[in-house]
């Protein structure tokens, strides 16, 4: 097609070969291109770059803020965990101490109770012993006088009758019992 056109172009007076550039077109292209380049560089690109930079800064700022918040939260959590561990430890220590104290108190009380019981027992023993001694002393005195009385009565009555004697002794004992009552 182009070759036939070239032949045609050669025949025609006007040159229509599209492959031959026209100087004015190159010049106009360069001028317009230069102007567009200059204006874009001065007006458009700085604005776009500014928007980019600000957006990047905003996003990075947001990320940094989030990271700081996360760090803070983590620190707080660590602190709480530490406090919790401390409290647990303390509670365990207190429990242990209480257990020890309780055991001690029980032991003390037991010892005290035993001592008291021993004291009471020994007091009772002493009292019983004293009462017995008193009764015995009293009895000794009374037995003497009663023997004397009984002998007197036996002597006062006729001593020949065994049965009578026996009755006398029984009577005496009954009297003795009555007087004792």
């Amino acid at each position, binding site marked *: 097609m182009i070759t036939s*056109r070239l032949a045609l172009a050669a025949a025609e007076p006007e040159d229509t070969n599209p*492959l031959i550039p026209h100087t004015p*077109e190159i010049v106009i292209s360069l001028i317009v291109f230069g102007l567009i380049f200059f204006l874009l560089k001065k007006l458009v690109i700085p604005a776009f770059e500014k*928007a980019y930079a600000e957006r990047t800064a905003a996003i990075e700022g947001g990320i940094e803020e989030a990271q700081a918040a996360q760090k803070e939260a983590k620190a707080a959590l660590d602190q709480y965990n530490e406090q919790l561990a401390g409290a647990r430890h303390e509670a365990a220590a207190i429990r242990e101490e209480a257990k020890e104290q309780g055991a001690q108190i029980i032991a003390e009380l037991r010892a005290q109770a035993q001592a008291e019981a021993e004291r009471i027992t020994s007091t009772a023993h002493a009292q019983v012993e004293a009462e017995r001694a008193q009764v015995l002393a009293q009895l000794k005195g009374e037995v003497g006088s009663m023997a004397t009385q009984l002998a007197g009565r036996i002597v006062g009555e006729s001593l020949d009758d065994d049965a009578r004697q026996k009755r006398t002794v029984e009577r005496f004992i009954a009297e003795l019992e009555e007087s004792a009552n």
Partner: protein
Amino acid sequence: MTLALTAFAASAEPPSPGPADFDLPAVFHIGEFGVTKPMLLVVLSLFVIVGLFSTMARPAAVVPGRMQFAGELVYGFVRNGIARENIGSAEFMRFVPYLFTIFLFVLVNNFYGLFPFLQFPSMSHIGYPLAIAILSWLVYNGAGIKKKGFLGYLKHETVPGGMKGPILILLVPLEFLSNILLRPITLTLRLFATMFAGHLLLILFSLGGSYLLLHSDNSLALPAGLVSSLLAIAISFLEILIMFLQAYVFTLLSSMYIGEALADEH
């Protein structure tokens, strides 16, 4: 194209679209100098690009509005998707304004091809892409020479890493040809030719369609004209993709050349 269409509607001759259709008559004259449609379109792109993007960039808000978001999408695409990927995060910022300008300049001038009433891709005139290709050539070679010195840069671009001995006699001229001489030409031709061919296809199918539907007496003209018109629409959609891709490729290759010129090793 619209001009051609109206001019054609009067006559009943079958259309024969060709390179001549790209040689539009001057819209007006300043002295001897004829101002053509693509010249006006290229100048218009200055106002479109700067007006649109300064409006979108002005708020410079941390939370962008709809306009700013759209602008940032395009800017971020060139800045991060193209420049940083290919040049590396250490040095790419210096080249972002240049690459951003290439992308928008090529994109807008390509999209003119499908914009109602404008309907002419300025990049289908070889002078416009050639100018940017020369700029890119200056930029990447300049960056390399500034970093490595003239001879150091020449060695960096022409001697492949790990190569030794007589093979270099073959490789060095080849590398010089491909890395230094041909790059501006391929950049120019790729953009120019796709825009040229795309626009030519659109002219062909739309003019052909309208001729077949309106002026032909052939019995097959009606279905052929319908298919031709439908193809014109389909190709328009394809062109949207190609127009974007060419802007992307031009920017991408420029950034790759810069990245390569600055790279420490091959």
